[in-house]
Structures are given as structure tokens and as C-alpha cells.
């Protein structure tokens, strides 16, 4: 078994909960406007190091999705017993972010579904996910 690494600091860099609108934190290149998530020190498109942190949009749409039906190996921190979960790339406009999906049956998702980010550091290890913007009927 690999040793369990404390990811608290890594996770704090993914999110900003200081204001009224908690959001994910990405980086934007000041030379070519390319955005990434998580924030990184160089631009993957042009190689510039003139990048700075930006707040990412809080709503988007499911660009593609799947269900993780078997328990991943370490470093996955498993619920016990394992519960399959849905995940997606959520199109936020400037960037697509990979994230867990919650708030709907795991196989009921469709490309184009409108979703909003939820940030909750009390849910460990998961610190963010997306859920439907509208209440389910």
C-alpha cells in the first residue's frame, strides 16, 4: 500500500471559499488567455510563465460523462462499501473541468445537462463536485 499523503494543502489551492460565491481556482495565461485547472506555473499552450490565478465560472454543462462502477485502486480513498459514482468533464467556457457529479441517479446524466459547482470542505476527501442547477422533478 502506498503511504497516504495529506492532501489538505493541495485541495485548498483548488478552491476559494473566502467570498459569497465559492469557486474553483484556475490559472490564465496573460499572453494567450489559455486557462487551466488546477492553476499551474506555465501555460500549456504557449509555454509562457506569465500566468496568474483566476476564478472559474460556477456554472456550466456536462460535456461528457461516465460512471465509475468499480472501486479504483489506491490512492483512491474508498467509501465502504464502495458506491459507484458519476463523473464528467464540465464545460465552463474557458476550460472543461473533470469532476464528480452528484444529485441525480448515476446513469441518468446526459451531455448538455446544466450543472453548478458545489464546494464543501467538510465532505472528505471530496472537496468539490457538480450537481444539477435545477431541482430534480
Amino acid at each position, binding site marked *: 500500500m*502506498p503511504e497516504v*499523503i495529506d*492532501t489538505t494543502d*493541495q*485541495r485548498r489551492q*483548488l478552491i476559494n471559499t473566502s467570498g459569497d460565491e465559492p469557486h474553483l481556482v*484556475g490559472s490564465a495565461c496573460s499572453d494567450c488567455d*489559455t*486557462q*487551466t*485547472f*488546477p492553476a499551474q506555473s506555465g501555460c*500549456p*499552450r504557449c509555454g509562457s510563465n506569465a500566468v496568474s490565478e483566476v476564478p472559474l465560472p460556477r456554472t456550466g454543462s456536462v*460535456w*461528457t*460523462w*461516465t*460512471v*465509475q*462502477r*468499480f472501486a*479504483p*485502486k*489506491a*490512492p*483512491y*480513498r474508498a467509501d465502504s462499501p464502495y458506491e459507484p*459514482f458519476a*463523473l*464528467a*468533464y464540465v464545460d465552463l*467556457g*474557458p*476550460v*472543461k*473541468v*473533470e469532476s*464528480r457529479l452528484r444529485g441525480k441517479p448515476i*446513469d441518468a446524466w446526459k*451531455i448538455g445537462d446544466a450543472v453548478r459547482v458545489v464546494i464543501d470542505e467538510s465532505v472528505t*476527501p*471530496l*472537496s468539490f463536485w457538480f450537481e444539477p442547477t435545477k431541482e430534480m422533478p
Partner: protein
Amino acid sequence: MDVAIIGVGLHPFGRFDISAREMALIAARGALGDANVEWADIDFAAGGSKDGGHADALVKELGLTGTPFMSVYNGCATGGSSLLAAANAIEAGMADLALAVGFDKHERGAFATDPAEYGIGEWYGEDGMMVTTQFFGMKIQRYLADHDLDPRLLAELSAKALRNGARNPNAWRRNALSVDAIADAEMVNDPLTKYMFCSPSEGAAAVVLASPDKARELRADPVWLRAVEFRTRKYGTFEVFSPSLAAEITPGATVYAAAAAFESAGVGPSDIDVAQIQDTEAGAELMHLAECGLCEHGEQGELIMSGALEIDGRLPVNTDGGCIANGEPIGASGLRQVIECVLQLQNRADGRQVPNDPRTAFTQVYGAPGLSTCTVLSR
């Protein structure tokens, strides 16, 4: 490129009681024997393995001749890189005879990868996203929607792989399954069911390459390696282990490697008589067919349902059962494809010989985190 393949050797793929090294020695000695040369004749060697040990350490058993032996690793495309290194040594005039070898032996189940190896935080793995199979599910889910393709085509491709594997004595999975049995099997990562994936396995593959003069001296029917082209991804491609993707998705490494291979070989996709395409899962084969230029995006349904990709079809693909029927020993997989094309071109693919008198063949491997090697071969 002016390089010939004059010998091939394969240890069957599957699960075995011997080590990966022992399999590598069987494959290497098989290739040397097929070429009718000795290890001492080899001027340059290249090889790779993920879990089977260092390739260059094979000299302990092959013989300590002083031959330069380069160990390489490029994920699932490792075999392509070994071949490229060996072929380049001949092109550069550094060798008249070269050996490329790949071997592996993996644990059962999906690969476990440490996010740190890919420059990603541990949080990504903790959250359950450091999983190759879920990437495959998400990539093909989007591709099917973008090109209005029926998910059932994935079951059709798996059925073809297993049908071909049943005819290949070296394959691991040798039981054909119906399209319904595949489509209705346990879902793993939607829309992919358990029979649509290849599994990590064990095996070894080796080829002996020769300069043109040496090839003509040693073999009446050498196969010519017309092109080996290797590309890594550009910005904006949709790759495994990506916490985020670009606003605009761009073509993957396969598109550039395939186009370069066709250009340097001086042939086009319509000249290909038999092809081996990376099918880590059925969706990969579906997408790679178009990325290689063997059809247009969205045309795969017609190609598959017409039978064109079958052994007796217009464009037989994955005639040995591909990764789905052979499993994937990472270091060996790319060389398996090349060997299958060589056997087809020499009319010695036992039980699965394509009947179209093939003259020109094509291979494509694709590996994490977004690289591809394509070859064109001819007799």
C-alpha cells in the same frame, strides 16, 4: 525509410508461469532464428517493459557481446519506440542488423498509477479520477454523440476482436462472443461493458531489422519498413489523466503520426490491405480508424456493418484479435502489431490469413499521456 524486417518472434500473450524476462528471451531467440542470425551478429538492440525489468539486462542471457542496447519506455506505445530506435540505428549506418524487443507481465485488474508520475496532485487519485477506463468511457461517450454513432458498434468491434482471436493460436482470449452478449454484459464505465476492454496481460515480442543489403542476403521475402513515425500530443487534445481540458479540443497525436507515416512511405490510406490499430477498448479502435485516415469521422458504422474490417473484408483490421483478444503487455503490444502485419504480408498468419494477397500494411499504437507511433510496411 530503407529498413527491412527479416525475423519475428513472439511469446504468446495471456497468463503464464514464467517471468517476463523468460518470455522476452523466447521471443528474441525466436526472432533471431526466424532471421537465421545469431545474437552475436546484432549490432544494435532496443527494448522496453513497464513491469518486466530492464530490457538491456537481457544481455545476461542473450550473451555479453558488447552490443549497444537501449532501454525505452513510452507507455502503451513502448513497442513503437523500440522499433523506431532500432530502425534509426540502421538508417544512420550504425548497424546492419538490429533487434527490437518488448515484454511485460502485469498484475490483474486496471493499472494503478500514481498521480505524481504525471505531475498531478494526489487529490485527483483520492477522488477516484486517476483511472484509465473512465477516461475511455468519457472519450467515446462524447465521440459517439459528436458523430451520431450507435453505441452498439462498440459491441460489434469487440465481437470482431474475439472472433479473430479465436483463430489465432497466440491469442489470450480465444472464445468468440455474440454482439448481444457483449452489449448486455456488466457495464464498467458507461457506455463500455466488461467485454469491450482489453486487460493487462503477459507476453513478449521481438523483431530483427536489417539494412537493405543484409536483408537481401539473408531472406528471400523480407518485409520493408517504409515508415515509422512517432508524435506526442499538441495543446488541446483529449487525453487520459487530465484534470481539465481545453476550451477547443484539437486532433490527437495519432492524426499527425499517421499522416506523417503515409507521407514518408509515399502511400495513402486507400493502399492499405491489412491494419493493426490500438484497441485498448472498442472505442479506441472506432476513433483511431478515422484518426489514421482509414475512414472519415462518422463513417465507421458503415465500415463495420458492411464487414469491411473482417479478415475477408476490404480492410481487415486487428486480424490477430488486437489488444481486446491478446490483452496488453505494455512493452510488447506495439511489436505484436508489427509482427502480425509481417506474418500477413508473408502469407504465414496461421488460421487467420487475409485472403486479399496483401502488399501494404499499417500499424498504430497509442499510449498515455497522448503519444502515437504509426508504421507502414510492405513486401
